[in-house]
């Protein structure tokens, strides 16, 4: 709510100087805000999500530069958001602007992120930095343990890919970075 209040204050000050132009801007902002609310889905106050079972990804020393290096892991995605237990997931890397980049000093190595709402997958839907992937479904919701300790132990897959072209173009070095995953009910 704070950003919205601040935005409204800015509008009020600007309208005295140039009412018609800022009125149009205000209309755009209202529409954008409404779109953001609608796009957030019908999550209600009692909805709860949890992501757990994540493991660090260590590719080790790359020996094959002609093929992609792929690491996948299954994890627990709990979503108590009836009736469908749907969720959205947003990923951000440690590169500028959340870019999916590993770094070694000033050198960088891009990686790709894929997500599947099924466990045991080695491919999924491509995630883009800071762009939510919507309409994902969890089989674990109300009545189940939020760490998947009851029922299926894992419910989703995370896939990290180092493309061969990126590996070939990268300078030798030890690269590292972080990936953050934010989930929200839908």
């Amino acid at each position, binding site marked *: 709510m704070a950003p919205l209040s601040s935005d409204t204050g800015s509008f009020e000050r600007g309208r005295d100087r140039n009412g018609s132009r800022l009125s149009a801007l205000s209309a755009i902002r209202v529409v954008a805000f409404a779109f953001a609310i609608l796009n957030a889905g019908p*999550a209600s*106050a009692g*909805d*709860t*999500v*949890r*992501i*757990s*079972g*994540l*493991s*660090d*990804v*260590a*590719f*080790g*020393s*790359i*020996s094959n*530069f*002609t093929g992609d*290096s792929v690491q996948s892991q299954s*994890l627990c995605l*709990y979503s108590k958001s009836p009736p469908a237990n749907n969720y959205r997931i947003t990923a951000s890397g440690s590169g500028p602007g959340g870019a999916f980049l*590993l770094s*070694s000093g000033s*050198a960088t*190595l891009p*990686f790709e992120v894929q997500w599947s709402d099924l466990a045991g997958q080695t491919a999924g839907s491509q995630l883009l930095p800071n762009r939510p992937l919507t309409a994902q479904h969890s089989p674990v919701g109300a009545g189940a343990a*939020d760490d998947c300790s009851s029922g299926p132990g894992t419910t989703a897959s*995370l896939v*990290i890919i*180092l493309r061969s*072209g990126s*590996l*070939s*173009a*990268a*300078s*030798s*070095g*030890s*690269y*590292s*970075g*972080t*990936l*953050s*995953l*934010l*989930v*929200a*009910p839908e």
Partner: protein
Amino acid sequence: MKTVGNRKRWLLTAVAALAMPGAAYAATQGTAGSTSTGSISISATVPGRVQLSGLSDVAFGTVDPTVAAVQAEDVCVWSNTSGRGYTVTATGSGTSNAFTLSDGTNTIPYSVEWAGSSGQSSGTALVSGTGLGGLSSSATNPTCSAGPIASASLIVRMSAASLQAAIASSYLGTLTLVVAPQ
């Protein structure tokens, strides 16, 4: 007592972190709530590598002894060191790895030159068994299948004097090239 307990836990945590260098980057698990956030570390080591490809056999055919014979070819050298640097070392199949062709009895000497870019008809003379350094590759792919299609030139040359001194015959030899990251 509670403060002492907290200090002990803090100390144990610190000791554990020191004992496990990778612990600072350990995955974090999300907690249950209206949103949940987890994070992981990702690491990869890209070792220093080079690759030489695109070599073709050199066939001079029947040569005119009054004219020097030269054959140049474009090759691909890929290096992933920070400066894309590499060294190249050549050895021949003659005695003590000399650059000579042979018919089984007689020999013809030849020279080898290397240029760090493609499309060249002359370069720096190589000495058998001695690396030539200070070279940098423009290749972005190990086999030049993407980016520039070649990144260096190999030049093999037989002088007119050597050809005039040679006994008429058919000569054959091999040239071995080794590239290394630099």
